[in-house]
């Protein structure tokens, strides 16, 4: 079923952050951060180093508990039930590390088994097709893979999870332009499937290409939000991003 998000009438948010504040010693990493992502929506979170992007993901994954505010993933508070929350999430880390001694197929089969799913070889192949990993590489051990190839294996895993939430941490950092385009197309298909996608990235152009909304994070809060669909001046956006990142 295709789900079209309507920015003016969002469905119940699948990712729901309300008034999150998190301190690390004297430093406030997240300051009253609120953010909602509905089903079939792609939200890109941009920000400079230390803006709180990775911390936001860590809260959603249940690795960090906020000092105040509530996070919910498909209705589950990760601070209360991290395992349950993670079952709703497919996660693509910035630097994908796999088991070098296993093939791409075996890696995917292992991680999917951990998640409680046993996709057959054909299904894994279809996911790897979607991720763009060339077929001759699939039976080789991933020890010899490039960063981009590993990224594609992880993307295939994210596709196979079939969960309501996809968290992406710099997803295109290891991909060449063509693979990036393929990846964006893949995101489009996941979005159509109803997946709520939160993407943390530095890639403003990539975000503008695929995201429904782009939030600029600075000082632990969203200082500005834009909707690329409404027509934006990319150069002006780039300039603003530079200002935000510098701030």
């Amino acid at each position, binding site marked *: 079923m295709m789900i079209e998000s309507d920015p003016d009438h969002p469905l119940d948010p699948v990712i729901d952050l309300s008034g999150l504040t998190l301190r690390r010693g004297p430093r406030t990493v997240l300051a009253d951060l609120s953010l909602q992502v509905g089903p079939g929506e792609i939200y890109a979170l941009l920000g400079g180093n230390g803006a709180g992007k990775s911390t936001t993901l860590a809260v959603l994954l249940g690795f960090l508990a906020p000092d105040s505010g509530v996070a919910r993933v498909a209705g589950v508070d990760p601070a209360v039930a991290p395992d349950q929350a*993670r079952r709703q999430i497919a996660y693509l*880390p910035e630097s994908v*590390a796999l*088991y070098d001694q296993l093939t791409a197929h075996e890696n995917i089969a292992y991680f999917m088994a951990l998640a409680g799913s046993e996709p057959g070889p054909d299904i894994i192949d279809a996911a790897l097709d979607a991720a763009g990993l060339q077929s001759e590489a699939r039976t080789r051990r991933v020890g010899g893979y490039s960063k981009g190839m590993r990224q594609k294996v992880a993307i295939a895993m994210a596709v196979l999870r079939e969960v309501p939430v996809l968290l992406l941490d710099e997803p295109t950092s290891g991909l060449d332009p063509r693979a990036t385009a393929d990846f964006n197309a893949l995101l489009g298909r996941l979005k159509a499937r109803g997946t709520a996608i939160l993407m943390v990235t530095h890639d403003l152009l990539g975000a503008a290409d695929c995201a429904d909304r782009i939030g600029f994070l600075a000082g632990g809060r969203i200082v500005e939000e834009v909707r690329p669909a409404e027509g934006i001046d990319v150069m002006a956006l780039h300039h603003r991003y530079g200002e935000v990142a510098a701030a």
Partner: protein
Amino acid sequence: MSLWSHELRLFLRQPLAAPLLALLLLLASASVWAGLAEITRQHAAIDRILPQQAADEAAVAAWATREGDAGNVAYYTHYATWDRPSPLAFAALGQRDVAPFVLRIRALALEGQINESEAYNAELALPGRFDWAFVLTYLAPLFIIVLLHDLVSSEREGGRLLLLTVMARSETALWVRRVVLRVGLVILTLVLPLAVGGLLSGAGQPILGMAGLAAAYAVFWALVCVAVGRFRLASVTSAATLAAVWLIMTLVLPGLALLAINAAVPVRQGVELTLAQREAVHAGWDKPKEATLAAFFREEPAWRDTAPMRSGFHWKWYYAFQHLGDLSVAEQVRAYRAGLERRNALSGRIGLLLPPVGLQMVLHRLAETDLVAQLTYQDRIRRYHRELRHFFYPFLFREQPFGPADFARAPRWRDSADTPRPPRPGA
């Protein structure tokens, strides 16, 4: 394909996993083979005694009975005793590599005969035999440490921990499964050769006790690894920490405990007993015969009505002061034994705190190769020696002639009812 199969494939594809398990299997198999070879050698040595004993007796009988004097016969005839290894002894040789398992005794003073064989090469005795108990106690923990020291840290250092944590339905189940798999394979590697050895030696069900101990010991070391892992150390630091724990628990603390026990419970050496008894026996030559016999009759009143001693030598006087020699060191023998038992008991208490010590004690008890088994053998020798003395006393004190036919009536050492038979041929 189940998660266990996935984990097994992942584990066995690690560069070191399969070679390590193969090495442990090789060591465990070699230790079982060495243990079986030693036990087979001991059985063979015991089996060689009977025909040699018969030949020896025939030679003595040929000339010692010519005069019909039992004293001559008792003096020159050695009677064989032996202590067959239990079917489990191959796995934990214990005291059997230093304590005698064959002792030929005469009807003379006994304690010297028992204790003079105590001397052994201390340098060889220090490391002990290479047996299965050694592999389990000292080497298996090292393998467990190598396999478990970086259980989590390798994932963290390899950058996979986050992905693993997010993907796993239960993070706890993930780590438990990995620990169980590794420890299970180590246990299997240790127990398989033991089971084969048990089959060859006819050990039967008691082998399960040893297998259970191996499993419990492996789990203990796995828990130590998990406990150290909770400090989130780097893999190298974790390995160094665990190696230090191994060194302290298996070598340093047991060594210190041994020193403390030896200091707390001083025990005279067996050779001192031998010396004291010999001196008492030799002094018997210079004591008045009447006094010697009077002292002997207080212990053995049944022979009080023997004919009065004529001047010169008589075997009954000689055997009287031999027995008095034993009695003169009886208190020292009791103290020596009590000291050994006290040390053993203290070692048992330390074993409750130090699993390597406790494990070895229980293994040696199961294998009947410990101090208790050694002392039991000595007690049987003492009972047999008493039978021998009382066999000869009527001939000596009633001055009855001792003929070749009497040889056949002498008490014989028997395997105890629960003594096992030798291993099957080929073991």
